[in-house]
Every structure is written in C-alpha cells, then in structure tokens.
C-alpha cells in the first residue's frame, strides 16, 4: 500500500472569485514507503502547494489525500495527528528558530506531541546526531550558530518528531557546495536508516540526481512525470521546455550522442559517466 496517495486533487486559490487560480490541478499520485522523491518544477509550477496538501496545511478544493490509506480530511480533528506523521520543513527554516537554546528549539515538536521528558530528550539527541550537530551546541542560543548549523538545527526540529514522511523544501538553498553535500548525505543517511519516506523539493538537478530514488516533475499546476531518476532525466527535451534542465553530466552524454557517438543518455552522476566512458575508451585501445 502506498504511504501517500492523491486522488484527483485540485486546489484553487480564491475559488469563486474572478481572480481564482488553480495552483494544482487533478493530481493523481501514489508514493511507496521508503522512497526518496526529488520534486522539481519551475517557480509557480505548484510544488509548494502540492507538499502543503500532504500534511493538511492546505485542504484540497476537490479530491482526496490519503496518508497510510486514510483520507486525512475524513475524520474531524484528525489533522493534528497527520502533522505529526508528516513533517514539513520550509525553505530557509533557520528563520523559524525561536527558542532560548538549540535543545529547546529541537524539542518543541516532540514536546507538543505530548512525549515524556525522557522520550523528548531521546528524540532531540537522535535528531541532532542525524544532522551532525555537536552535543555541546545544544545548550547554545540558536542565534549564535553559523548559517549552516542553524539550517541543521531547524531540520533536526522536524526530524525529532520522528515523522513517517519527511518533506524538505529546498534544504540546500544558499549553501556552499560542501554545505550542500553534507546536508544531502545527511538526508540520504536518514532515509536509509529510519526507512522513512523523504520528499525533497529542489531547484538543483545535480542535488536531486545525487540522492533521489524517484523524481516527481510538476509543470503548470499538473503532475508531468513521476518516475525513476534515469527515466526522468532521459526526457531532457521535455524538461527543457518546462524551464528545467538535466545535470551537466547528462548534457555531456546527450551532446556525445548528437555528435554521432554510440552512447546511452541515461547517465546522471559523474561516477556513472566516468565508468561508461572509461570502458569505451579503454576498450578502444585494445
């Protein structure tokens, strides 16, 4: 059974008004448990509206959202539980830190869930470990942390609720390459060890290519693709028309093919590109 199911979900802002716009239209989607889904799409394609439906921040104008097979809007008062199950971490989450200490900030979610003091502490320490925050930082004020540390603390605050589904909106925006890589490896590690389903909204095709198991493409309020990484990036022309792109390494293979070299273009990491070229070039020497 899929962990997330959407059936004919449409969301219209300002419904009934002359200025009404549908931010997402007729979305049908099934996401299996344990996937790491990269969500891509141009600005205004509906990515944020889509993810805000998954934890009940937005209610569909029509259609249904199922988490674990349960329609989240069927029972009154159910949404609070859904928000614990589906953790959403917004863009630039470091602006949302507010507590006196990093520990208290990370503990805010689990405390609200009604966990005991011991359980809360356990969750906070586990989350801090996942994001690589040193224990001595936990007693500091969040405002004394560096930019990268703040970002991690904010992500830890969502992880500490042990959500079954973790959604991160642009977790690497504004970070330097090393910071990006660290956050991505940490997300991958979290997904692998906890078995949680992770959704990662990103503008960086390279980031998505390096960690995702599947890619979801939004275009003009509709679901354009939901498929494996290689299948999505093999449709470079279509992506380009949607204002997206494919990783540079994929563009190199597409370029080679256009020049008449016999290569497949389903390459999306440098490692894989290297492996294939090496065997072709070494093969040629023999």
């Amino acid at each position, binding site marked *: 059974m899929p962990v997330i199911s959407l059936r004919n979900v449409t969301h219209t802002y300002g419904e009934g008004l002359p200025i009404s716009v549908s931010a997402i239209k007729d979305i049908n989607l099934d996401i299996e448990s344990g996937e790491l889904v990269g969500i891509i799409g141009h600005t205004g394609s509906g990515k944020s509206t889509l993810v805000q439906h998954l934890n009940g921040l937005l209610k569909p104008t029509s259609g249904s959202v199922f988490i674990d097979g349960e329609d989240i809007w069927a029972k009154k008062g159910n949404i609070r539980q859904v928000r614990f199950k589906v953790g959403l971490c917004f863009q630039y989450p470091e602006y949302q830190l507010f507590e006196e200490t990093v520990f208290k900030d990370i503990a805010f979610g689990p405390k609200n869930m009604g966990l005991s003091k011991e359980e809360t502490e356990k969750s906070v320490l586990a989350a801090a470990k996942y994001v690589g925050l040193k224990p001595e930082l936990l007693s500091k004020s969040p405002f004394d942390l560096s930019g990268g540390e703040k970002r991690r603390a904010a992500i830890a605050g969502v992880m500490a609720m042990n959500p079954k589904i973790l959604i991160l909106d642009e977790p690497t*925006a504004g970070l330097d390459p090393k910071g990006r890589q660290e956050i991505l490896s940490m997300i991958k590690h979290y997904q692998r060890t906890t078995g949680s389903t992770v959704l990662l909204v990103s503008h960086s095709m390279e980031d998505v290519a390096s960690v995702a198991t599947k890619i979801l493409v939004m275009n003009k309020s509709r679901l354009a693709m939901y498929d494996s990484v290689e299948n999505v990036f093999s449709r470079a022309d279509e992506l380009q028309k949607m*204002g997206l792109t494919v990783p540079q390494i994929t563009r190199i293979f597409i*370029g080679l093919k256009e020049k008449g070299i016999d290569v497949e273009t389903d390459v999306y990491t440098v490692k894989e590109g290297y492996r294939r070229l090496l065997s072709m070039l070494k093969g040629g020497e023999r």
Partner: protein
Amino acid sequence: MENIIEFENVSFRYEADEEGKLLDLAVENINLGIEKGSFVAVLGHNGSGKSTLAKLTNAINVPESGRVLVNGLDSADEKNTDEIRRTVGMVFQNPDNQIVATIVEDDVAFGPENLGIEPQEIRRRVDEALKSVNMYDFRLSEPYKLSGGQKQRVAIAGVLAMQTQCIVLDEPTAMLDPSGRQEVISTIKRLNKELGITVVLVTHFMEEAVEADRVIVMDKGTVFADGTAREVFSQSEKLLAVGLDVPQATQLAKLLKAGGINISTDILNEKECIEALVSLLKE
C-alpha cells in the same frame, strides 16, 4: 586597462556583539583591483568573506583599515558615498526584498528619481534599462506576478537606470529555478559584453563562475586564489579543500585522466568536454 575598484590593504570587521566582544576580522588585508569592463566571479564557502567584500565595493561596508577606491574616490569619505553608489550598484539574493514599487517601471524609476533627475530623462532611462534586461514588455506589470528570474532582471534594470558603471551581484540566482538562473546569467553576460558594464558576481554555482573572465576565491577573509576560470578550476583539490567544487565536466575529465585516459584536465564546460571526448572516441 584601468581599475574601477581598488582595494588597498583592506581589513573589515562587523560591530561588536551585545556584550561588547570584538568579532574577528571578516576580511583581512585584501589587495585587489577590479578592471573596468571585466566580468569577475567571486567564490567562497559560507562565511569566507565574499559578501563582506561585495559590500565594501559601494560603501555599505567601510574599511576598518586600508582603503577602497572607486574611480579614485575613497569610500571612507562620506562626501563620496553618493557618487560611489551611483557608480557601483548592488543586486542581492532575495528578489522579494529589493523591489519597492507596485508597478515594474515605477520600481526601476525609484533610483533615478532619488537622484533628482528630470522626468523625461527618467522615462528614457527606465525604458532603456528595461529593454536591456528584456523586461520592457512587462513595464506595466505588478512585480509580485513575475517569476524570480524576471524580478531579478527588474532589480538589475533598477541599477542600470542609475547609469551605474559596475554591478555587484551577491548570489543573485540562489533562490531561482534553472531557467531563472539562465535568464539572469545571460542578462549580466550581455550587459558586460555589449554595454561594457563591469560585473562582479558572487556565487555558489561553479557553472556560473566559469563564464567569468576572472575568478577570485575567498577563504577565511583572504584571497585564496585569483586567476582565469581555467587557472582556478584546474586546481580542483585546492578548491575542494576550501569547501568548493568544480563543474561536473571538469570532474569527469579529472577522473578519466586519473583512470589513464589522455584527456586535458583544464576542461571548464560541457562543450569543451564533449569536443575532447568526441576526438578521443573517434580516434
């Protein structure tokens, strides 16, 4: 070629925190000249001092010691501030924080209006600025309806309308989608090539930096590397050591070289990489 901006032994630190504890220097003993008409990319990890450096170019930051000269004018002298800001304009990361008006052309006119320029002249400058960033058709649009890339181009037009000679952009594409990034980068390249405007681009994206004539890498508040894109990116180990990266095309060439393939390792972009590979594969 003469320099439009000169850094002479420049050090700067931000004001002490609430407890009065002196902060470390954000940049230390910088000596740099930015040549008129050049396109310079500034790289560095978060906290390396690159934004501080950018803000020193137009008197948002003023050196603690040393001097910054813009067309020969010392930025520490308040009498020069207006002239310096007219010469060097800045564009920041978040497009939503730098648009002030409710109509695109009003926003672009904001700068020249503040300079007390004649209305007809403002009209002319606004039209010209919007045309040069390909946003003239949107002159009557409401900024909130524009995409991120379009908003950034409006911000650039706002700077151009001041008849700025140099534009300093501090991570202008960090919040944009791929096509938005492309729009902004091709716009600034064109302004540099066609109008001769000096461009200083602070960025985290290596693929953007390879487009520049010169790449400056900051680390711990000092200049860590300075040269052409090819010179700088050929030292990938050094860049990795300071938290940076090289483009995937360069990474691929390095790996192949290490794997015993006779390929040049100063490849910068996909075009060069494809050409090198095609000639190897067709041999």
